[in-house]
């Protein structure tokens, strides 16, 4: 898992999921980062970022 700027991962309460395996299934690529956030108008957005190769 990758933290931004070397910081430790925020807790799940902060709306981020350091470990995405539970949501994407066992087959997720190693290091996958999934970050759910809320847009200003309340809609949901999720960012997917590949881990380091």
């Amino acid at each position, binding site marked *: 898992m990758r933290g931004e700027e070397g910081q430790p991962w925020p807790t799940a309460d902060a709306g981020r999921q350091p470990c*995405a395996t539970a*949501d*994407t299934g066992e087959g997720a690529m190693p290091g996958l980062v999934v970050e759910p956030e809320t847009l200003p108008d309340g*809609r*949901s*957005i999720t*960012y997917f*970022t590949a881990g380091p190769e």
Partner: protein
Amino acid sequence: MSERRYDPTHDEWVTFATHRQDRTYKPATADCPLCPTHPGGPATEIPRAHFEIAVFDNRFPSLSPTPPTPDVAGTDLVPVEPAYGHCEVVVFTDDHEATLASVGERRVRLLVDAWAHRFRALAADPRIGYVLPFENKGEAVGVTLHHPHGQIYAYPDVPPRPAREQRAARHHRDRTGRCVFCDVVAQEQGGPRVVVEGTHFLAGVPPWARFPYEVDVWARDHVGTMPELDTAARDDLARVLARVLAGYDEYFGFRTSYLLGVHSAPVNVPDDERGLGHLHLEICPPHRGGGKLKYLAGSETFGGAFLTDVAPEVAGPRLRDAAERATVPA
């Protein structure tokens, strides 16, 4: 106005989403709502300045978890109901000029994970019956936003075409005891219509191709949905899909337009029904070669009967050669 109306003469639902007429139509590149938001620049749909893949709720959804009350009252003959469901937008890259064929295999691999994640999240809504990821690409299929993106619709029931697949699969199983898609994979592998042969997925022009250069990508194993794929299978799907798409551009010599849909097992249905589903992608370019386009005309629209003017045994080797020649970015 947003609602679903039942057509009792064809036993299917039609969704009305008239508010979608107001949605962004062919914006100038500088006004692209799917580009990242650059510091000091106008806010787009995506607040970040950089991203790899972003998935968000469609601002103009056809199906909504909080649908408005229908405009008209239904009758016993023609029931009308709120257009319940979910519509998400999947942005493949922050590069406005890229395509899914150009983003590279690794980004396609990430997309497979994103599809799996969203599939699982949307299927967790017990009111959802079917999750359909798709991409409409290119002017030739009427796309209004050119930034590379797809969509995911989560329907409150199983839509007509997947429902028909389920019926066909049940009929085949009752007759033979086997899965019809597994039988198709067994028949097609190694044959003349194969376009890309992967270890876990097989891409080929189906013997019944409705579009001259249709390619279907079938899971080799009997698996119903993306979340069930292990790492090796997802790696292979990305490899096969990236090469098929690059092959199209290589063959036609331009950025190919197409419709791409992911067919999975229905969700929130009994195990027996779900077990009939077999994961596959269908990719349908409207191109017929020579700059000509295939339109859905009288036979297709009123007969539901497709007429195709290129033999799949001819299209298969053409696309296979092109896919082998094509350069697929890592």
